[in-house]
Every structure is written in structure tokens, then in C-alpha cells.
């Protein structure tokens, strides 16, 4: 009994604990692998598909027998028993239809979900290679569309097989009753189906044209609304609604073209099967008049001719489904083939002990243990690159520009262990949707106090207030409800919570206002005091608080010292030229035009004057 219940009703809970490792040779291999993985589901689905279609194929046959029996003897015992058989077959048909549908959907989900799981796993371990090799839209579409297309092959398998069975049964039944009619049906229906299938091509062409026009219209609509603030603030609404209307009319026109072809197809779908049935009925009537078949059989032939168009239609559809799934599987394989940007080859060196220096060999930037440093460069990209290299985000790209930890190249270390020790937060960190507390505590190791402390350091208390449930509140997708500054501060707090041995932050305060920046600078440096930290920034508010500033110029560390020392260093002292350039970088906010070289002196004087003014006030 329990086996029956399981077979009939229970659908195995998904997703899978482990989706497995598919071969990535090509689309067909992937499809076959998926089929093997759920062979039992497919077998059950096919069993019920065949059963249900067989039942419906026998309906006209039984109908003919009831009519013959009733014509001969009215509601006799024989008639009643044929009715009973018809009812019995009907019940089996109903049951197998419903159960079969459950298994079709199960087969669909198994394939679609397993494929989705494979994609999400690939994305999660690929690092930035996924975006380097494929457009985001393509990856998302592989989950949103391609997995669904793949699933459809498995969903229609039962019905497809059922259709083949029905077709065979009907042809055999008819051939037994009349050779001519049997042959007409066996050969005629595929011809009708083929003609209709041919017409589908031009229809699809028109449909594609309309879809493309529709796509442009949607883009135009989204574009207009995205810029709505500008349109309402500056003007131009009329121009844009006019543009939208023009494109909308193009879509309508394309739709009218579709209607032209579609209505011909609809008409032919009436005409061709209709004429085919008329032919069968005429031939059947002739046979009946000649007394070679009964009236019941004539009714049955009519039934076969009209009912068979459904399985034949399904078979044509299946070909379509398989073609689409093959294309979809190809796209999924392309995503699954993406190799992780780091750690793809495993580690070859042992992890150095704690409290060793992290060195960017290319520029010589060295993070000595326990120091809070800042990195400034005339070219902000250059200093950011140093930080990114320290994060080891791309083994292949960084082979020529190694970074070492305690003398060992990062690329040779175990990636997971390295990520525990060194955390690099780049300039545009992504926020993920979810509970704020959960999103902050990426290591699942912090308690509530630690989270609140990190939020305090990042001066992000206003984020707590903006969420309805505070730290338990939900952040929407990409943190969209937060302002740019809030997002940046939440990301900063998140990096702080990881509490790593070495922390590297790139422009952590670029989007916050000066008041906030001043608070963060003070709290952040206080919090990391005594632990290895590097902040890439050119903001005096931050530079003022770090232990030491490294000034990167022309690819090397040209000057180092406290912010104060670098500001005060005379131009003719050793390193004075570099310090002057440093002042130009950090003080540019006051310079109207730093391209004029002669302004150096003037600028120094101005900065000096301001510093003095501050001191005496």
C-alpha cells in the first residue's frame, strides 16, 4: 500500500543535497546525464503516459461497440457490459492522467532544479571569471529560461511516448477492421500534421519580429521611467511619450502581421483535419453501405479520425521541445564550463605562521604586522590595483605581479584558509538581500554586540533606523532601498565583522559626507589599532588617523610617514619632492588647477596657512 501511495501522491522534496557532477562535453551528454540521474522518475512518467493515452485511444472503439450492441438489442446485458467497460477504462484514464501529470511535473522539476543547482554552484565558486567570460544576463537567463527548457523535455517524455502508443494502437485497430481506412488514417494524419508544421515556420518568423519590436518597446518604457525624474524636472515628457507611442504602434503593426499568418494557420487547422475526417467518414459510409463494417464502426472511425489529431499534434510539439532543450543545454554547459578565477589548481605551499608581512612585490608596498596604514597614489587606479592584488582574485592574471605572505606567493596557498586571514574589500562591494544581521555576519561567528559595534564603527546606525525591524530587518535586492552612502557603510561594517588578521579597504568612505567620514576615520583606525590594516584613500580626514601613509608614485613607494610629516616635509629635504606631489594629491580639493606646475609653492603655502589657522583657532 505504501508503495502505491508513494508512487501516486508523494513528490520527493527538492532541491537535492548534492546535484552531482555532470560531464561537460556537450549539450547532449548533459541531457543524457540528467536522464540517467532520474531514470526511475522517467520510467514511471512514461508508464502512466502510455496508460492514459492507451485508454483514450480505446474510447472510440468501445463507443462503436456500445452503438452496435444498442442498435441490435437495445439496452441489453451486452450493451451494459460494453458501457461498464467504457466506464472502467474511463476511470483508469482519469486516474492515470492525474498521476501521470504529477510525474511529468516531477520529471520537469528534477531536471530543471538539478541544472539550476549546478549553475548556482558554478557561480558561487567562479569568482569574477563568471562575469569576465559571460554577460550577466546570459548567466541569469540560464537559470531563468534554459533550465526550464531542459526540464520540458523530461516533462513531455511520458506524453510523447503515450502519443506514439496511441497512434500505433489506433492504426492496428483500424487495419483490423478495414485495410483502406486503416491506411488512410495511418498515412493521412502525418501528412496533415506535416503541412501544419510547415506553416508554423513563417508564423514563428512574424512572432519573432513582434517579440523583438516588443523588446525594444519594453526597453524604451523602462528607459523613460528610469529617467522620469529628469523628464519631470527638466522637460521632454511629450517627446518621450511620442517615441513610446511610435514604437508601440510598430509592435501593434507587427502583431497585425502575426494575426494574418496566425489566422491562416487557425483556418487550416479547421480545414485540413476537417477534410480528412470527411474523407474518412465518406469511405466509412461506403464500407457501411456495402455492409463490410457496422454503423458502430463507422462512428468509431469518425472518433479515431478526430481524436488522433491530438497525439499527432503532441508529437510535432515534442520535436520542437527537444530542439529548444538542446540549445538551452548548450548554453548551460557554457556556464558550467567557467573555471574559478582562483584556487582552481589547489595549493602547493603550507600556510605561513601568523604575524608575517604581506608584500606586493610589484610596488614594494609592505603591510607590516600590526600597523594601520594608508595607501595614496596620484592615480587612484594604481593604488586600488595594489589592494586588489592583495586580495588574490585572479591567479592567472596575477602570475606576473605576485603578492607574498611571509614570503610565500598567495597563489600557492590554500584559498579558503587565505580568505580567513586576509580580507580585501574593494571599492564597489556588493550587498546581498536578506536579514541585515545575517548579511553582516558572513562568517556566522559574531554575536549581536559585535555586529552593533561594527555598525557603530561604520557609523551606520541610521541604516538600523531605516529598516523596520532594525538589525533583524530585511535588506532588499542589491540593498536598493539604501542610499549610496548607507550601502557603503553597511559593506564596511560587514568587512569589519570578519575581523581578519589582515584587512584591506579600498576607498571605504568615498560616498559618505564629511561629517560621517570624520567619525568613521576616527573609529575605524581606533578599532583596527594594533592589527594589520591598509586603507586606500586620498581623504585627509582618514589619512590623519593612520599610523603611516605610503605614497605610491610611478609604481613605487616614493614617500612614507605620517600624514602630518608628509605635509610638513620641506621640498628640499630628502623625499621632499615626493612629499610635495603627495600634498598635491591629497590637497587637490583646494587647488583650482594643478596642471600648472608652478602652483606647487603657492599650494604648499596655502596648505601651511590653513594648518596654522586651524592650530591657532
Amino acid at each position, binding site marked *: 500500500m505504501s508503495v502505491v501511495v508513494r508512487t501516486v501522491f508523494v513528490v520527493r522534496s527538492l*532541491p537535492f543535497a548534492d546535484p552531482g557532477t555532470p560531464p561537460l562535453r556537450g549539450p547532449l551528454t548533459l541531457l543524457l546525464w540528467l536522464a540517467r540521474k532520474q531514470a526511475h522518475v522517467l520510467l514511471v512518467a512514461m508508464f502512466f503516459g502510455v496508460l492514459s493515452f492507451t485508454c483514450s485511444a480505446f474510447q472510440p472503439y468501445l463507443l462503436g461497440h456500445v*452503438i452496435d450492441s*444498442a442498435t441490435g438489442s437495445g*439496452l441489453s446485458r451486452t450493451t451494459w457490459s460494453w*458501457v461498464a467497460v467504457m466506464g472502467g477504462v*474511463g476511470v483508469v484514464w*482519469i486516474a492515470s492522467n492525474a498521476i501521470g*501529470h504529477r510525474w511529468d511535473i516531477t520529471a520537469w522539476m528534477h531536471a530543471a*532544479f538539478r541544472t539550476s*543547482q549546478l549553475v548556482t554552484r558554478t*557561480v558561487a565558486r567562479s569568482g569574477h571569471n*563568471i562575469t569576465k567570460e559571460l554577460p550577466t544576463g546570459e548567466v541569469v537567463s540560464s*537559470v*531563468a529560461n534554459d533550465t526550464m527548457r531542459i526540464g520540458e523535455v523530461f516533462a513531455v517524455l511520458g506524453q510523447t511516448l503515450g502519443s506514439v502508443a496511441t497512434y500505433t494502437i489506433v492504426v492496428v485497430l483500424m487495419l483490423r477492421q478495414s485495410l483502406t481506412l486503416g491506411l488512410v488514417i495511418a498515412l493521412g494524419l502525418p501528412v496533415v500534421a506535416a503541412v501544419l508544421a510547415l506553416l508554423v515556420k513563417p508564423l514563428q518568423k512574424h512572432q519573432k519580429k513582434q517579440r523583438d519590436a516588443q523588446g525594444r518597446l*519594453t*526597453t524604451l518604457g523602462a*528607459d*523613460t*521611467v528610469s529617467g522620469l*525624474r529628469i523628464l*519631470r*524636472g527638466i522637460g*521632454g515628457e511629450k*517627446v*518621450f511619450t511620442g517615441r*513610446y507611442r511610435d514604437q*508601440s504602434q510598430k509592435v501593434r503593426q507587427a*502583431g*497585425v502581421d502575426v*494575426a494574418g499568418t496566425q*489566422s491562416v494557420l*487557425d*483556418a487550416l487547422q479547421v480545414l485540413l483535419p*476537417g477534410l480528412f475526417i470527411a474523407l474518412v*467518414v*465518406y469511405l466509412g459510409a461506403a464500407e*457501411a*453501405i456495402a455492409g463490410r463494417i457496422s*454503423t458502430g464502426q*463507422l462512428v468509431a472511425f469518425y472518433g479515431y479520425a478526430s481524436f488522433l489529431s491530438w497525439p499527432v499534434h503532441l508529437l510535432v510539439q515534442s520535436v520542437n521541445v527537444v530542439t529548444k532543450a538542446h540549445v538551452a543545454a548548450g548554453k548551460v554547459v557554457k556556464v558550467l564550463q567557467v573555471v574559478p578565477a582562483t584556487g582552481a589548481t589547489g595549493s602547493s605551499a603550507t600556510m605561513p605562521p601568523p604575524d608575517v608581512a604581506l608584500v606586493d612585490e610589484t610596488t614594494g608596498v609592505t603591510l607590516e604586522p600590526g600597523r594601520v596604514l594608508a595607501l595614496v597614489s596620484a592615480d*587612484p587606479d594604481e593604488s586600488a590595483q595594489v589592494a586588489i592584488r592583495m586580495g588574490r*582574485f585572479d591567479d592567472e592574471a596575477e602570475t606576473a605581479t605576485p603578492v607574498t605572505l611571509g614570503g610565500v606567493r598567495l597563489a600557492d596557498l590554500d584559498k579558503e584558509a587565505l580568505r*580567513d586571514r586576509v580580507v580585501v574589500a574593494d571599492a564597489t*562591494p*556588493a*550587498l546581498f*538581500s536578506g536579514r541585515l544581521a545575517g548579511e553582516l555576519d*558572513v562568517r556566522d561567528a559574531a554575536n549581536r554586540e559585535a555586529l552593533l559595534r561594527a555598525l557603530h564603527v561604520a557609523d551606520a546606525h541610521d541604516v538600523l533606523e531605516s529598516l523596520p525591524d532594525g538589525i533583524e530587518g530585511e535588506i532588499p535586492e542589491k540593498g536598493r532601498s539604501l*542610499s549610496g552612502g548607507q550601502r557603503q557603510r553597511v559593506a564596511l561594517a560587514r568587512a569589519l565583522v570578519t575581523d581578519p588578521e589582515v584587512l584591506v579597504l579600498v576607498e571605504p568612505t568615498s*560616498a*559618505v*559626507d*564629511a*561629517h*560621517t567620514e*570624520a567619525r568613521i576615520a576616527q573609529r575605524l583606525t581606533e578599532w583596527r589599532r594594533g592589527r594589520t590594516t591598509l586603507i586606500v584613500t586620498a581623504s585627509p580626514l582618514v589619512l590623519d588617523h593612520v599610523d603611516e601613509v605610503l605614497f605610491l608614485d610611478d609604481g613605487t613607494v616614493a614617500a612614507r610617514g605620517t600624514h602630518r610629516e608628509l*605635509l610638513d616635509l620641506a621640498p628640499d629635504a630628502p623625499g621632499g619632492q615626493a612629499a610635495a606631489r603627495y600634498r598635491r594629491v591629497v590637497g587637490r580639493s*583646494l587647488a583650482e588647477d594643478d596642471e600648472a606646475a608652478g602652483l606647487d609653492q603657492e599650494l604648499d603655502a596655502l596648505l601651511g596657512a590653513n*594648518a596654522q589657522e586651524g592650530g591657532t*583657532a
Partner: protein
Amino acid sequence: MSTGKILPIADAAQTWAYTRRLLGRHRAPLVVITVANTVAAVAGLAGPFVLGRLVDGVTEGITLEAARDLVLLAVGAIVLQSLITRFAQRRAMVFGETVFADMREEFVETVTSLPLSTVETAGTGDLIARTTRDVSRIQNAVRFGVPRLVVAVVTLVLTIAVSFVLAPLVAVAILVGVPVLVAVARWYLKRATPAYQRESAAYAQLDGTVTESVEGARTVDALKIGRRRTARGDDDLHEAFQAERGTLFLRTVLFPGVDFAFMIAPISVLVWGCYLASEGTVTIGGVASIVMYTYQLQGPVWELIFWLDEIQVAATSLSRIIGVRLVPTDRVAGTAVPTDEHVRGEGVRYAYREGTDVLHGIDLDLRVGERLAIVGPSGSGKSTLGRMLAGIHPPTGGTVRVGGVPLVDLPLEDLRKHVALVTQEHHVFVGSLADNLRLAKIDADDAELLAALRAVDAHGWVEALDEGLATEVGSGGHKLTPAQAQQVALARLVLLDPHTLVLDEATSLLDPRAARHLERSLNAVLEGRTVVAIAHRLHTAHDADRVAVLDGGRITEIGAHDELVAANGEYASLWHSWQHE
């Protein structure tokens, strides 16, 4: 700050009234479609009728010629039905396309004339979702659903009617399955909409998770949260699974229910018909016709359930689309004309939520031609004050006037000529560069556009473009850097030429280098205008004629930079830490 307000959603009565009005506007084609489909449906009933006559004929000893004539009658009906189908289906689809085009155009027009304050506070996310997702969700229902529904209903009614005309006694048996059918369909339709919405929400969530993981791939790697992201995806899939199981359950009830009705109906017709035939009331041929009619009902019934389901789902999207029409206007333009260019706020208050003022009665008198910087911590009300000064929002208390006329009494076109708000947003519209500029001045010629670009220091890169002003930009076109996009926005201001500008952290999102070049462009625009700059970086304040420090919705300090530094208050301490004491 920008998420407080949610756009309205129409209720059932409003949605229904709108639908009725819309269909009323297209009554003529609707009637034509119904009539044509009625004729086609009648012709479609010939087949089973002829079959019945043949069955009786064979029993009575019909000639082959007579049989042939009957079949030819059927062929004639089929040809007629095909011809009308071709005409009616075409008309129906064109009808659907026209109605849908009508709806979406009207919708976009409504959206683009939303009140300024709604646009600023509601944000564009919800509106974009309504423009794209909701519009596409109703498209199937509008384009195909309504016409198909007409066909299904007409076919159903006629098939049953003709059955009753042919053999009323037998036809009664068709209705045996109806109670089960109606009960099951109602049960299903009542539950279908939320169940399918849960399903699509689950998949949307999964897509969102994947998008986040892909776009944040670097962060995923850096923070070692790959496993978390995978688990999130699995959670989404589990929710999708639960949702699928829910709809599967609904169908596990619906399918057998409908199937049962269509199994029991022909059998009942048969048994009842055979009994009547044995009594001599009807012929076997008549019974055969009615049995075939019962089978023919199956298609339209499924079609009906399918489209009712689809239309239900579409109705929720429709209510969101119509909802946009319900946004009340935020101002009524008067006729007073400002006497000069003097902008002045008196006792300005504003509350996003009733009872919690963000601004507490601010008096601010802008001197014509001055540059005023507003500084203050996050949440102090800087941006809100900026919007009041630009006439975006009607204040909840006090007024902001230009030349003696409240800003919100001015017609929008006039308001723009007086004050403009410049935000950090720099959307580049899909279209040519010229299109992007002409927003501000529709009749401007190319020379004017180039002059505006020159004024903001942007003519260099524009002239370097192969197609110059005609270059297609925006999504899918030539990509502008953020700085170039900002310059385009500034050139628009030159063309618009308002005497007062409110800059809301206009350059804060740019990297420091770009901001510097931009400042030169910005200065060119600011030349000769009154400027209120909501300052992000302190040097903006340093350069201003006056600085206003805003804290907790009040101006705590106001005066020239040097005065404030000398006064040694909040501003001074901030300035010193910036400048390094």
C-alpha cells in the same frame, strides 16, 4: 528617504470600471468578432450532425449518392467554417493588439505626467516594474484572452443549444457532468491566482539571487561566501518546489474533476440515448451526433478554464497599472507671475509621515546670484530642504516663493525656467545625443546644442565621436562615462537656463579625478545664477558665498565660510579636521 511612499493599487471596482470603459470604446469590433465566431461555430457543428444522419441512413438503406451528398454538405460547412475562422481570428487578434497598444500608451502617458513629488519620493523601481513586468503580464490576457474567451463561450453555448434543438431529450444528459465541472472549476479558480503568483515570485527570487551572485561575484569570492550563496539558491529552489507542489495539488483536483465530467457525460448520453432509441423516441444516429458534441465541448471548456485563470492573474497586474492613474495631483497651477528672481523660504516645514517633521520651520532668503552651500550630517534634512527650494514638493507648512509667487503655484513649464534641481542621478536616455539634450529645449538647433556642450567643456569628446550629436547613446548605444553623462546633464541645464539651481550632491558619486574636471563644467553652468549646493565635500562649502549648517531639520549656523570658521562652532571644527589641525 526615498522609499516612504508606495504607489496606489486600484481596487476591484475601479479595475472593473476601467475594463468596462475600455471594452466600451472598442464595442464595434467586439460585436463583429462575436457574430463572426457564432457563424463559424454553427458551421463547426455540421460534422457530428452528418455522422448521425449517415448512421441512420445506413440502417435505413441509404444510397451511396445520398451519402456522398451528406458528406459534401459537411465539406461545405468545413470550408465555410475555415473561411470565417480566418476572418474572425484575424479580426480578434487585431482587436487584442489594438486594445493592448491603447492601454500601454495611455499608461506611459499617465506615468510621465505623475506629480513631481510622487516621482521624487516613490522612486522609479516600482514604476519600472509596472511598466515592464505588469504590462507584459497582462499582454497575453488582453491580446489573446479576451478574443479566445469570446470564441470559447460562443462555441459552448451553441453546441449545447444545437444539441437541444436536434434531440432535446437526449441533450439533457450532456448536463450530467456540469455540477461536478462547475464545482471543481470554481474551487480551482478561487485558489489558482495566489498559488501561481507564489510560484512566479519564487522563481523571480531565484533569478534575483543568481543576479546578485553574478554581479557580486568578486565580493562573493573576497568574503568567502560562496557556500552561503549556494545555500540561498537552494532555499529559493525549495520555495519554488513548495509553490510547484501547491499548484500541482490544485491540478490534481482539477484534472480528474474535469475529466470525470467529460467521461460521465458521453456515457450518460449513450445510455440514456440508447434507452430512448429502444423506446423509439430518437434514432441511434441522433445519439451518435450528441455524443460527438459532448466530446467537442472538451476543447472550449479547457480553453475557458485556462483563460479565466490567466485573466485572474492579469487582473492583479491590471490593478497595479490602473493604480498609477489614482495618484492625486500635488498642485494646482495659478496665474500669478513672479515679479523678480528672488527665491525665499518662510517657515518651511515638511513631514513625510504626519506628525514627524523633517524640517522645523526654516527661513531662508536666497540672495540673487549668490552661492549658498548647505552642509550637515546624513538625515539632517538637507535633501528635503533642497526639494522644497526647487518646488518639487509643496511644503507641509510655510512657503517657498519666487518673485512673490509660491513655487508650487507655477505651471510646471514655468517652474522649470525658474528653478531646477540637479541630482547625482545622470540617466542617459536611449536615443541620440541630440535627443538627450533637446529635452530641455525642444526647438534648439544643433548650433545651440553644441554651444551648450562647449559651455560645459564637453564639445571635445562630442566632436571626437564619429557621428557627433547624432551618436546613439544610452542602453545598447555608445557608452558614456559617468563624467560625460554628468556633462550632458549640465549641458541640458544650460539649455534650460533657469535663474536658480539646487544641486543635490551633484558630483558625489564620481571618482575624485572626474569630479575635478566636472567642477569646471559645473562652474560654467553656475555662472550668473543663484546656486544652492547641498554639499558633500567641504571644499564646495569653502568656495561658497555663504554656508548654512543644517542639523536636525533646523539651520544652526549660517554665514560666510570665514565667519563660521571664526565663530568656532560645529562647522569650524569640521573644517579643521578636514584641513588637519
